[in-house]
């Protein structure tokens, strides 16, 4: 069976912040429907890599293609030119992101948080946007809170709404940036539950996480990163249980010691 | 007459007046620093009437224009037999005005010193005065330096108000020269440039201070 074009294609990605090299040459493909987990120690560059996918970070070098379209840059003849803000926004609308600190809009109600994108960016009708929002709220188990404001909600509740907000844009791809790292332990489960459901429905997901058992059970591919490079990539079993690379093994050992 | 020629003709007088302005600002700053300290101490004292008096002082001097305060010091006090020169009245008025702001700056500086430090010093048995001298004050001083700098810059600009009670400052000199050379716009622009030359380096300095003391 021929492999279709990857939904996400990362080629030769380098990213430096000043003199600090955070990504040192990343090549990665993500197929439609795949769930990829990025794991690794702090400073390994996994969050930076994720943020390059929707161009929240501008690569120092390298290309990223979303559904075969170059993101953040345009090819004019043979030179690469920065993409216009409008074009970039259009591409970003098709990629959903869930942040570690939720980043819900505090001055808007839960419902308004979710319908804002469909209304103002996708120009959908209010009735349609509200209907979809309510469906999503049901899906993440937060329908009762539709008129509440973010500050009245717990972290786990806010994050579930953040996921609904991202899904409201009907993205092709969902990026999770340590979605549960800022949550109290007892609230982590409810968010992972939503992510798991999403995975089962076939969403393409790139997940940066410290939740190893979750990564193991949900992912098709696990990527272990350290010092700005991909050290090892493979199915969960290979990374978590059968790795032949010492660096990977010592990391897995260290995190499972808890 | 172009700017060059005008400057040639007037710069001696303008710079002399600028010097007077600097003296006025400096004098007012000194008065403000001293009176402000008294007001701050009263504000933080244990005596309720003293605290009330300090609060009223601050409220009145921050709630009324500096110009009105200068009027009162210069004109009204004559009724009780006190007559200051316009220069003195300006220095006193501006100084008392600055004192209200400075006292709040002192208070903020003292309160910004983390309580934990004071408690730690007391816990090792340091007497109260020593705590003040060695723990609180050095830090408070670092915190207040930049805000005091900002007050100084404001004072420099506020001295222009003294011209309205005919105190011999830069703006008054500009007024005189305007009637001599009939080029008010050019003269006031030159004067503006002089004020800028005095204030801008100060504000750069204060900004440097702010950056340093943020650590």
């Amino acid at each position, binding site marked *: 069976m021929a492999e279709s074009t990857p939904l996400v294609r990362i080629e030769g990605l380098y990213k430096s912040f000043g003199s600090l090299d955070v990504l040192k040459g990343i090549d990665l493909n993500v197929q439609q429907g795949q769930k990829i987990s990025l794991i690794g120690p702090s400073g390994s560059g996994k969050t930076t890599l994720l943020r390059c996918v929707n161009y929240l970070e501008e690569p120092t070098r390298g290309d990223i293609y979303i559904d075969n379209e170059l993101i953040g840059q345009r090819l004019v003849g043979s030179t690469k030119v920065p993409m216009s803000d409008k074009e970039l926004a259009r591409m970003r609308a098709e990629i959903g992101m869930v942040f570690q600190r939720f980043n819900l809009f505090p001055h808007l109600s839960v419902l308004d948080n979710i319908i804002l994108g469909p209304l*103002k*960016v996708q120009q959908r009708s209010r009735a349609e946007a509200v209907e979809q929002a309510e469906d999503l709220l049901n899906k993440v188990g937060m329908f009762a809170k539709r008129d509440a404001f973010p500050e009245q909600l717990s972290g786990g509740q806010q994050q579930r709404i953040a996921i609904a907000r*991202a899904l409201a844009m009907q993205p092709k791809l969902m990026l999770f940036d340590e979605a549960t790292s800022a949550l109290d332990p007892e609230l982590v489960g409810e968010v992972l539950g939503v992510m798991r459901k999403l995975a089962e429905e076939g969403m393409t997901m790139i997940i940066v996480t410290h939740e190893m058992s979750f990564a193991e059970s949900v992912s098709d591919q696990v990527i272990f990163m350290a010092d700005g490079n991909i050290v090892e990539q493979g199915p969960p079993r290979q990374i978590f249980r059968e790795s032949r690379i010492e660096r990977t093994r010592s990391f897995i050992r260290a995190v499972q010691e808890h | 007459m172009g700017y060059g020629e005008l400057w040639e003709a007037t710069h001696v007088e303008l710079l002399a007046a600028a010097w007077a302005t600097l003296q006025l600002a400096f004098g007012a700053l000194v008065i403000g620093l001293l009176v402000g300290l008294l007001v701050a101490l009263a504000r933080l004292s244990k005596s309720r009437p003293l605290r009330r008096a300090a609060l009223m002082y601050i409220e009145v001097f921050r709630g009324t224009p500096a110009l009105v305060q200068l009027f009162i010091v210069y004109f009204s006090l004559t009724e009780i037999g006190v007559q200051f020169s316009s220069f003195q009245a300006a220095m006193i008025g501006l100084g008392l005005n600055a004192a209200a702001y400075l006292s709040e700056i002192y208070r903020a500086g003292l309160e910004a010193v983390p309580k934990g430090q004071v408690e730690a010093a007391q816990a090792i048995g340091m007497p109260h005065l020593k705590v003040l001298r060695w723990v609180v004050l050095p830090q408070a001083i670092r915190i207040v330096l930049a805000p005091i700098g900002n007050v100084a810059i404001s004072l420099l600009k506020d001295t222009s108000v003294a011209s309205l009670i005919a105190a011999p400052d830069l703006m008054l000199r500009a007024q005189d020269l305007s009637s001599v050379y009939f080029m008010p716009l050019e003269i006031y622009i030159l004067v503006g440039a002089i004020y800028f030359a005095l204030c801008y380096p100060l504000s750069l300095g204060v900004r440097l201070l702010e950056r340093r003391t943020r650590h």
Partner: protein
Amino acid sequence: MFDSIALNKAIDMLPYFLNVLGIGALTTVGLTFAAFVVATLLGFCLALMRLSRSRVLSLIASVYLEVFRNVPILTQLFILYFGLTYIGITLPAIGAAIIGFGLNGAAILSEVFRSSIRTIDRGQSEAAYSIGMTRSLAMRMIVLPQAFKVAIPGMANFAIGLLKDTSLASAAAVPELTFKARMLVSETYQTNLIYFLLAMIYLILSLILSHWAARTERRLKVVKEH
């Protein structure tokens, strides 16, 4: 010293004084309000210029700020006043005053706006971008509404300072409060009473302003807490 005849004379003139000063106070409030509006609109533009990615715009705004913040406002008023007559524009003195205070105030407010925009967490903008908002849409719908609430204390402080600064317009014969007071003093020589009333009226006006600002801030917080 406290001649009872003189005291009675002064008290008799009280209604007259309050009348004249009252009119002056209205002018002062009107002048303050008009200048505040000018300063807010222009200051907002300046803040956006400072924050823009265009180095040229940012530089222009910075230069504007430095000039207007390092020259006394009285000097600025005079330059404007004479400058306008120079280019042949005859404005009533109060018009020049509104422009002068507005231009100066814009420099001050632009810093208030700029810092309040910067206090809004970057995560908010990033979340907005991630749902496909352009920079300007994100600014309009997400950052500015939040920044506005943060800016209110700064704007209130500015307004009170502006109210006091309008006393300088008396030098240009604008018939505001201080000018009226000076007029009354030269008319009646009741220096103490008149300047006392003058100070009182400013005090009352600034207290009203600060209470009103505190109430507005509180009301905005309540509205959020639906």
